[in-house]
């Protein structure tokens, strides 16, 4: 028992004395819990409500268009965007924006829907009393919804159902109004036909007949329109992009660990006495780990191309711009390696580097839309996600593989990744290369 207790207390003492390590040990899981909880908050809400900008095009400009707009606006989770840069949006422009992923949803209320719905309501009530049916001859007016092809199925269903319920409530109102207007007429007609038979024999009074199916006949509908993208995204494309970026960033653990081991065992001191600029050694190290990242990416791609289809998924497609793909993956790898090098120079112990490295990558992944789409996050988290390098990498890869993006269309993401790489390398270089900067002239 004594050796056990002695060991136990020794380890506790060691942990207690590694204040920074302890801080990391307690703070990082707390950070993880807070970040992931906030990121997932809206996803787990029964309403699926997330504050979202929705493009809204009211071509009707009559009662229904306005009413639908007002009701959508009344929802806490929706902000309607009806114009961009002061210009009213047209459907084509909106569809392009949605296909590009700038907006996730566009709702179009077609011109004349108010009139069409009213006419349909009157005809339906008339048919209900007369026993006729013009249903088949009449096209059902509908509100069009365009989704970003990457929007998840659950979110689509949730929004479509909400819209359908909203329209149903409006229908009920219209039908009730039509019925209110029609019933007195029906009664009047019936009573008029009985005027010469007064006093009335209750047994001979005809009943006002009405088709019971009237109530379930629709006045209007909501239709999710097809995307104009040539190839619709698959779950394989999205998952390969997301998890390969996540996996690449996990290179920070071995890389940071290697740097710390070199520092601790004196290898770094020996390396710094070599007649080689330290930048050469750093670049060599960087090159090796970038190769590892590439192998990792290719392995995941191979799984998507050959492995997953065996299990019934679609074959992975990575878009048509190979150059853009190569540049993007390389930049993601460089950003990850730069972060690993920086971590290796800043952390004091291996435990700090591995703990902080793992938790920071998981947090950046959660914020970056790897686990949960950014558009379902709370607004604050959406803003923070703009600063996640994993988000830049993921957005660029999705743009290339799903939306047939090119180098031009991912230039911003590449620029951010380059800047991140430059900053992290500069920090690592400053920590390490102090003496090598006094190089020969």
């Amino acid at each position, binding site marked *: 028992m004594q050796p056990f207790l002695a060991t136990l207390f020794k380890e506790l003492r060691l942990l207690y004395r590694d204040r920074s390590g302890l801080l990391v040990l307690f703070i990082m899981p707390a950070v993880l819990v807070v970040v992931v909880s906030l990121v997932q908050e809206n996803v787990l809400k029964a309403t699926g409500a997330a504050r979202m900008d929705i493009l809204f095009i009211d071509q009707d400009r009559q009662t229904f268009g306005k009413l639908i707009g007002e009701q959508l606006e009344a929802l806490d989770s929706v902000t309607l965007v009806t114009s961009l840069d002061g210009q009213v949006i047209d459907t084509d422009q909106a569809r392009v924006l949605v296909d590009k992923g700038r907006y996730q949803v566009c709702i179009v209320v077609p011109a004349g829907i108010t009139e069409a719905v009213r006419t349909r309501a009157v005809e339906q009530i008339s048919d209900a009393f007369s026993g006729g049916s013009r249903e088949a001859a009449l096209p059902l007016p509908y509100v069009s919804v365009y989704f970003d092809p990457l929007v998840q199925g659950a979110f689509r269903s949730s929004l479509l159902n909400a819209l359908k319920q909203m329209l149903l409530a409006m229908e009920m109102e219209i039908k009730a109004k039509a019925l209110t207007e029609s019933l007195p007429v029906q009664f009047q007609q019936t009573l008029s036909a009985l005027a010469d038979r007064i006093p009335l024999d209750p047994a001979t009074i005809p009943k006002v007949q009405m088709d019971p199916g009237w109530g379930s006949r629709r006045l209007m509908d909501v239709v999710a329109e097809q995307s104009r993208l040539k190839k619709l995204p698959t779950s394989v494309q999205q998952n390969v992009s997301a998890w390969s970026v996540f996996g690449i960033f996990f290179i920070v653990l071995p890389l940071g660990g290697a740097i710390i081991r070199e520092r601790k065992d*004196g290898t770094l001191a*020996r390396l710094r006495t070599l*007649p080689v600029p330290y930048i050469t050694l750093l670049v060599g190290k960087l090159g090796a780990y970038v190769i590892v990242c590439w192998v990792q990416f290719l392995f995941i791609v191979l799984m998507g191309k050959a492995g997953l289809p065996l299990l019934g998924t679609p074959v992975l497609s990575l878009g048509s711009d190979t150059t853009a793909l190569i540049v993007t993956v390389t930049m993601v790898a460089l950003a990850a390696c730069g972060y690993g090098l920086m971590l290796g120079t800043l952390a004091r112990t291996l435990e700090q580097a591995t703990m902080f490295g793992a938790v920071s990558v998981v947090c950046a992944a959660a914020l970056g839309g790897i686990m949960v789409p950014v558009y379902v996050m709370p607004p604050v988290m959406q803003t923070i996600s703009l600063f996640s390098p994993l988000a830049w990498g993921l957005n660029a890869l999705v743009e290339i593989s799903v939306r047939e993006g090119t180098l031009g269309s991912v230039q911003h993401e590449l620029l951010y990744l380059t800047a991140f790489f430059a900053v992290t390398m500069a920090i690592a270089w400053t920590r390490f290369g102090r*003496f090598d900067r006094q190089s*020969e002239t």
Partner: protein
Amino acid sequence: MTHPESPPLTTILWAEGLTKTYPHARTPALASFSLSMGPGEIVGLLGPNGAGKTTAISLLTGLLAPDSGSVHICGADLFKYPRKARQWIGLVPQHIALYPSLTAAENLSYFGRMYRINGRELKDRIKACLEIVGLSNSAHGRIGAFSGGMKRRANLAIALLHQPRLLFLDEPTAGVDPQSRNMILDRLIELSRSGVSMLYTTHYIEEAEKICSRIAVIDEGRTLAHGSPGELTQAHPDCNDLGQLFLRLTGKDLRD
């Protein structure tokens, strides 16, 4: 061992007025340290823990920048022309500065390539260095599986690979058995005879006495005595040997 393209120099190391105070420290870790070494000289740097030995080696190898002072190695200013100066130095750090998951030969090969040694020449040098330290039969064994003595010898082999003119040895025999220690010291004497200069730090006074032509005793960053073992004992006739002299100069108080 021969020294390709070796300039015929009489001064291999020339250091003057090296002073270094670490951030937040009140006193300098090393103050006005000066030293010059000729070819084949072994200078012992003795001092208790915290005396400034490792700081001196770090400054002399360019790992640390001094607050003042200069270092020339084979005529090249270490801080002005670090790459030129560093090609002549080899460092045997206090720790086993090797990659444990690589074999001895792989470690040597990596560091050899850092000195731009390639092909047949690299293979020959690896073989020669492993022979010098008695590790020929363990060339393909992983460092991580080596005994403490073997690791120390491999640590030395790396520093010899590029045939340096000046070796910095920071407690190279710490924690090794008498057999390995004896072998390391014998090899160092042989290297010295072939013209390699060495700055040697150790806590084993008898080692310094055995191999060093000159000894500098430092404490609290200051040089307390400097000369050949004979000169030092002559200057302090009340001390029977270097061990006594060391304690006389640095005191008997325990060092933290």
